[in-house]
């Protein structure tokens, strides 16, 4: 069932050979095909623009009021590319190697190598579009370093790289909209996938202004709909980020891979109370100069929390710089998963700080003494300002309080080397798919993957599929469109009929607590088993006791939320199933039963060197696991150590 379609031959030649072997669609025939693109972040905008340039008809959809608002816009740090402009030993192979290792050897070699290959083209493309990357005084592009690499290969535009890259892709998209080759649908949400004879042939959408439930037909459907981090309620994702499009496709036959792989980012501003709606990231770069610590003893931490002691009262010898103590060679710059787990550990011991006790300090006192406040301001000023604005605490005068938060999901829709899912004609690009980051994503690699898929992979691979279809337009009168549309309408009506006592947010917050507690930074058999039951119970509570207001034929944010949470309630259980199945620790997935004597994550390559792809079998039926074996021919598997 799972044919990854990875071409034969040496790693470095796979993509070039494959491109030559892919079938082409004659330029005059491209206009006979329509491609549907769902989502307009980096992957979606770049795909829609590039495919339209080639001559295809494209219909693009986004739930926001403009394609420019997709959450790619919030990425701060940068984008990796193997340009080796710094002459510091970078190469395509090194970027490939770092990414496979960073992913804790749970990604597909051939996909990652292709990603590294096309990374150089992405930077060229963005510069040609007028993206204002940071530059040196000589006028050439500047780079910085990021976690998990020993070279400087990260291109950036201040702390707003995602914004500038997305606006570049948005400009390319706008150019095609102006030419009439892309028809753009803003404020439209995909609610189902239409298949005919097992092939993806269209989608059902809801117009979020008028409520109209519409069918759209196409020869291929591209899901570019991002990750599912909002299953945790609190995350660094945008409020609207959701799994609905991917989940609906899953229920129509697309396998869902490695759902338990979630990235918990160590440096976020902690939760202040139940009112909290989302969490804000503080860039990883802060760990270059900030020192992480908590009080050495629980008693001191308690006094601090109660206000009986001030931070300054805690003497140097009473502070535990636990990352520096445990990992002397990497110190505060250990990878994200390690930093996050250690923060949880000290908080669980009762040594956390802040009023809630669920935070650790990130202290810049030494950096300010060493470099001076002005230098620190020049490096991190905008982040310090953002922190000050949100917490009302001045990080120049007292340490930041930080705590890990859900940030990115490595799992996603299973795709082959062509980015096609197990439903022919249905593709998944960007964070929405599972393919390139294994069990842990390195910083500055998400932007790279989104644009690689959209600009440089899908324009080649989609043609291979379309060329085999013939030129007939999709039959929009096929009964499956009406059948699927009716099902969507029925579901909307069912949601609107719910008039219980709980709000959708009540249920979503409960789900978030369950996921965070049992399927978050550390997981174990008993906790996961308990979580499975709790989620099933919560799903029943949702369908019996939630309230959804208003009607369909209007802007209805109550209804929008309810539909998304209903899907999260199903996905959450699959994440737990996947985490239960994977009795090893790898990357962001830490099973307490599988750790080294020092408490570090321990992989089990013999039994778990595979992609876990889950097949939907019907309402309340257990999903069926399919395994794609991961074969490593070019890297040697080792246990990561940061001591």
């Amino acid at each position, binding site marked *: 069932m799972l044919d990854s379609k990875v071409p034969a031959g040496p790693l470095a030649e796979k993509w070039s050979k494959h491109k030559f072997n892919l079938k082409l669609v004659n330029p005059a025939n491209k206009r006979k095909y329509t491609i549907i693109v769902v989502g307009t972040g980096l992957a979606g905008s770049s795909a829609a623009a*590039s495919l339209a340039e080639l001559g295809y008809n494209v219909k693009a959809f986004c739930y926001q009021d403009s394609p420019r608002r997709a959450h790619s816009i919030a990425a701060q740090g940068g984008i990796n590319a193997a340009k080796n402009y710094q002459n510091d030993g970078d190469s395509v192979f090194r970027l490939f190697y770092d990414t496979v290792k960073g992913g804790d050897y749970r990604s597909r070699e051939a996909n990652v190598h292709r990603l590294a290959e096309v990374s150089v*083209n992405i930077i060229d493309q963005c510069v040609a579009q*007028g993206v204002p990357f940071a*530059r040196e005084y*000589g006028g050439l592009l500047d780079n910085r370093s990021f976690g998990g690499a020993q070279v400087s290969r990260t291109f950036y535009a201040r702390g707003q790289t995602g*914004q500038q890259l997305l606006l570049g892709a948005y400009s390319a998209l706008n150019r095609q909209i102006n030419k009439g080759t892309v028809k753009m649908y803003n404020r439209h949400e995909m609610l189902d996938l239409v298949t005919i004879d097992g092939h993806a042939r269209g989608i059902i959408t809801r117009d979020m202004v008028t409520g109209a439930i519409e069918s759209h037909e196409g020869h291929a459907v591209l899901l570019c709909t991002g990750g599912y981090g909002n299953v945790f309620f609190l995350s660094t994702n945008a409020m609207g980020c959701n799994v609905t499009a991917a989940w609906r496709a899953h229920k129509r036959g697309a396998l869902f891979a490695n759902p338990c792989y979630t990235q918990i980012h160590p440096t976020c501003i902690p939760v202040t109370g*139940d*009112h909290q*709606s989302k969490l804000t990231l503080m860039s990883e770069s802060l760990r270059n100069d900030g020192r992480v610590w908590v009080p050495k003893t629980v008693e001191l931490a308690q006094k601090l929390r109660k206000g009986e002691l001030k931070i300054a009262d805690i003497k140097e010898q009473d502070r535990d710089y636990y990352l520096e103590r445990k990992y002397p060679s990497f110190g505060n710059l250990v990878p994200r998963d390690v930093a996050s787990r250690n923060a949880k550990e000290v908080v669980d011991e009762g040594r956390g700080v802040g009023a809630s006790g669920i935070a650790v300090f990130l202290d810049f006192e030494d950096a300010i003494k060493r470099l001076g406040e002005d230098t620190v301001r020049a490096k991190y000023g905008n982040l310090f300002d953002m922190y000050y604005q949100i917490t009302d605490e001045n990080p120049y005068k007292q340490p930041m309080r930080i705590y890990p938060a859900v940030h990115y999901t490595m799992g996603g829709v299973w795709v082959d080397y062509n980015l096609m899912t197990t439903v022919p004609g249905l593709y998944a690009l960007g964070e929405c798919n599972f393919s390139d980051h294994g069990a842990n994503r390195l910083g500055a690699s998400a932007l790279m993957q989104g644009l690689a898929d959209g600009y440089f992979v899908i324009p080649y691979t989609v043609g291979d599929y379309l060329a085999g279809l013939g030129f007939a337009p999709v039959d929009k009168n096929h009964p499956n469109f009406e059948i699927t549309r009716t099902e969507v309408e029925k579901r909307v009506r069912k949601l609107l009929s719910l008039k219980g006592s709980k709000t959708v947010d009540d249920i979503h917050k409960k789900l978030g607590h369950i996921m965070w507690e049992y399927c978050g930074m550390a997981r174990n058999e008993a906790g996961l088993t308990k979580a499975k039951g709790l989620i099933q119970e919560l799903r029943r509570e949702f369908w019996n006791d939630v309230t959804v207001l208003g009607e369909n034929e209007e802007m209805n944010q109550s209804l929008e939320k309810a539909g998304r949470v209903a899907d999260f309630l199903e996905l959450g259980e699959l994440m737990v199933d996947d985490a239960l199945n994977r009795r090893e620790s790898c990357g962001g997935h830490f099973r307490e039963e599988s750790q080294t004597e020092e408490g570090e994550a321990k992989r089990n390559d013999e039994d778990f060197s595979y992609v876990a792809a889950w097949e939907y079998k019907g309402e309340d039926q257990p999903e069926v696991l399919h395994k794609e074996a991961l074969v490593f021919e070019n890297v040697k598997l080792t246990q990561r150590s940061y001591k």
Partner: protein
Amino acid sequence: MSGNMNLTLKVWRQKNDKTRGKFVTYQANGISSDMSFLEMLDVVNEDLVRKGEDPIHFDHDCREGICGMCSLHINGRPHGPKQGTTTCQLHMRSFHDGQTIVIEPWRAAAFPVIKDLAVDRSAFDRIQQAGGYINVNTGGVPDANGIPIPKIVADEAFESATCIGCGACVAACKNASAMLFVSAKISQYALLPQGQTERYSRAQAMVAQMDAEGFGSCTNTGACEAECPVGIKLTNIARMNREYLGAKILKQVEPH
């Protein structure tokens, strides 16, 4: 953790663009000063839902101040009383216990109300579609370092490119002019070497679309600059006027 601020909200409620809207008064009690303004509205909305009343609709997404989706005219000012922030980054400590807060949508003919506080800003998209890009296809472009750009120029272009497209400039302007928004994009490309080939046709196409959308003219009062959450400068408008004038003088009227 709830807080101890009690507030009176006067919120604009409007079913859709075909019905008349009105102010409705709500009490927001137990508000914490740590909440963001939108989290305060979340609390009010949760109460409304529990009472079976339609929640207040407003646009928002990233809640990090970068996507540009949130709006809101708060006590007469776009994005509220604090300078240099979006509504989502505005916190309740900028208000005091007992205060009355008036919340309205962006008011501009070119931004019709969709529902309550949510407006239709697709006019901004259409202006960008008219010419806010460089005509390059994917692939076949020069090496990124083949186009050296002085740092000072790249930095200035970045300052213009940082516009989040929220529409506060239009909402702040007594003429509902969109010139700050349009000029930011025109400036970004006019400054960069990649944008030179089409600089005049771009200025003409974008200005023509801006006029067609019904935005007002600029009378240099500078309210847009004062209210812009990301600090887009008025000098962009001066540059746009130069670009537009240049296009007229050079009579470059080729389609963009």
